[in-house]
């Protein structure tokens, strides 16, 4: 009996931990999609966040400044996407992929130049578990919550703020209108280009934070390829969650759960490689079945002036 409870506790704790980068990135993707810009650059923005987060923390020996770096460089890579797609009307798939390629190459290159290393960075200051004894005392969930670091709580706040913004404010309504029908938005005097830039940059910011969670929240180094396609998974989660922040949160927990199974099953009955495939298999299943009912904003990829 006790053992089952323990396993459950481990799974939930691990699910929450695995979910955070997905929550941040898929909420970012929500901003992009709602502004009518396809969000294929998420992976690259996450890599940017993961790498520059470590660099910032390395330079200033402070994880928070690392986080700031992650946000800024996530936005910088997003800016590339926005300039190409929104201003110069490059196909969003191409400009998104260009972000992914450039940021992955940048990280590898800078690892070499700055530290002269292949594959991973040196250790830097990172985020640790929050120090809150009162939290531990909460029944049942206390232990699980206390295992998380501050970024977990930050991501929950971000989801709630994002939801309020999108569905309760004037600006959110306009953002959604731009994503649904840019021409209509233009005819009622909404600055379509500005909203698209905003949507994409928010996506970069949140994906950057999501990437930083991987390098500064789960570990304390940057490892080449550490995002492991989570940016793409976030895109799927976002669609799965109906392009809403709350939906993205729930979808992320769902995916996080399957990712967490590997911590349980590792070395046990099932070969670990099989277990590690779970999130990706799930992605394919969701792509082929789950997303059919989810309707993307109608104006994705459309411009107001054509």
């Amino acid at each position: 009996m006790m053992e089952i409870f323990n396993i459950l506790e481990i799974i939930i704790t691990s699910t929450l931990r695995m979910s955070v980068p997905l929550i941040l990135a898929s909420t970012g993707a929500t901003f992009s999609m709602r502004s009518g810009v396809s969000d294929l650059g998420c992976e690259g923005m996450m890599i940017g966040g993961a790498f520059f987060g470590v660099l910032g923390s390395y330079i200033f020996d402070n994880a928070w400044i690392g986080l700031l770096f992650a946000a800024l460089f996530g936005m910088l890579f997003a800016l590339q996407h926005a300039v190409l797609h929104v201003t110069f009307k490059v196909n969003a798939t191409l400009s998104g992929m260009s972000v992914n390629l450039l940021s992955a190459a940048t990280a590898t290159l800078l690892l070499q130049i700055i530290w002269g290393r292949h594959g991973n960075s040196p250790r830097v200051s990172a985020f640790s578990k929050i120090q809150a004894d009162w939290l531990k005392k909460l029944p049942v969930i206390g232990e699980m919550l206390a295992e998380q670091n501050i970024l977990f709580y930050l991501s929950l706040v971000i989801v709630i703020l994002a939801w309020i913004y999108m569905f309760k404010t004037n600006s959110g309504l306009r953002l959604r209108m731009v994503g649904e029908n840019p021409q209509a938005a233009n005819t009622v005097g909404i600055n379509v280009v500005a909203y698209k830039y905003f949507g994409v940059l928010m996506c970069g910011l949140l994906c950057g934070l999501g990437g930083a969670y991987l390098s500064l929240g789960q570990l304390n180094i940057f490892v080449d390829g550490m995002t492991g396609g989570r940016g793409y998974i976030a895109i799927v989660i976002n669609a799965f969650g109906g392009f809403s922040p709350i939906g993205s949160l729930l979808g992320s927990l769902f995916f996080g759960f399957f990712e967490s199974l590997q911590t349980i099953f590792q070395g046990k009955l099932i070969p670990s490689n099989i277990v590690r495939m779970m999130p990706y298999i799930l992605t394919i299943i969701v792509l082929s079945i789950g997303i059919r009912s989810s309707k993307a904003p109608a104006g994705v990829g459309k411009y107001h002036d054509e």
Partner: protein
Amino acid sequence: MELIKMTNISKYFHHVVALDGVDFYLNKGEILSLLGENGAGKTTLMKILYGMISPDSGEIYYKGQKVNFHRPLDAINMGIGMVHQHFMLVPAFTVLENIVAGAEPSKGIFLDIEKAREEVGELIRRFNFNISLDDKVERLSVGEQQRVEILKALYRKAEVLILDEPTAVLTPTEVDEIFVILDELRKEGCSIVIITHKLKETFAIADRISVLRDGKMIANNVDPKKLSENELSKMMVGREINLGVKRPAKNIGKVRLRVKNLVVKDGGRKKVDNVSFDLRDGEILGIAGVEGNGQTELIEALTGLRRPESMELELNGKKLEGDANTFLRNKIGHVPEDRLAMGLVKEMSVKKNLILGYHREEDFCKNIFLDEKNIEKYAEDLKAKYGIKASHIEDPISALSGGNQQKVVIARTFSRDPDVLIVAHPTRGVDVGAIEYIHGKLLELRDRGKAILLISADLDEVMTLSDRILVLYEGKIVRECQQGELSDVELGLLMTGGNLEMALGGEI
């Protein structure tokens, strides 16, 4: 009082004159009909007034003040609203969201949805709009969507309302409803411009008429009470127009196409339910019906675009099966119901669009390559023969007006000498001049012995052209009749599922 004055407005698109020194004015509290054929420049003129297009020359005065609108918002802020032909709505939003978006009432940064509801509700009551604020726009009928567009303008305190082809997509009942609303707005002091090419409606509602032709203002101050329909159409087109004259078929020949037991299912429902008919040489067989009663599926089955659940199709007494290409090669021509979605490739040139679907045929090909020279000659030839108004055959098809786009579809299909023609809504969104032309072509082909199946939502069109009429209701043929056998009221009754014997007390 003169509310708006536009003087000497000119506009060129790639050196083609769209507007040539046009003067225009609008008085307070009147309904003006801006009349003209497609491509005459009506929409361009109004888009200039609305700040969507900037003129190359000319001046605009609003309430005596010279104004310069750089974008629609400038016009909106001055109290000018426009309802576009293609509605600018967000289907996924509610009616309320659509109306207020861009000019929302707010509490700080938050949307004050209650205040919005109050304000829009007030407008709805004032003008008897009969629309529910919480419905998603995607679930509304076209007529209701139009009312949302009008509300959008009124909510922004529009004193001038421009409506681009407001009745083009409406059913007759909806047209009556919108006219009641416009009349109400006029009484409240609103000034309204209706862009149209429909004479009947112009006479029904307009206080004054301005006529544009080929980018020139032909007449600026026509009193609808003082002119007949014929005089006006002559003014608009530049020559006499003859519509609605019946020319019965003289020599109906043998059966060309025999359709038996046609069933088309879609999502488990029978869209076409066991339809059988013969189509003979030298006749036009009309299909009358309210849209969505199986016409689309019928057309798709008869042109090879869709495999029906069951169908025995005989062409010239021989069984016919295959895909769209097979049907084309067997000389079954197709004028699709939606020219932009199915009939044309928007990005391609007029020239390429004129051979689409027939591009594999010998006279367009040299081995595996396209024979550009021949195609060019062919396209120039058709352009002249069918009077397609395009500055050049290399222009993209999207640069042409709707009527001219339709002429391209017609020219392509008709000139490949088909034996059977499946023609769907051939004159939808097309001006009087082009309608007359297309009708004439259809009758000419029929008299040359072609078998023509005409599907149209326009009952007048079906009744004028057809030698025989089938009434389609919920996928079934509920009645077959000869030309002139049934009145429009009787046909209308059958089209909506009515029963003549019951309605008319067994007289028939």
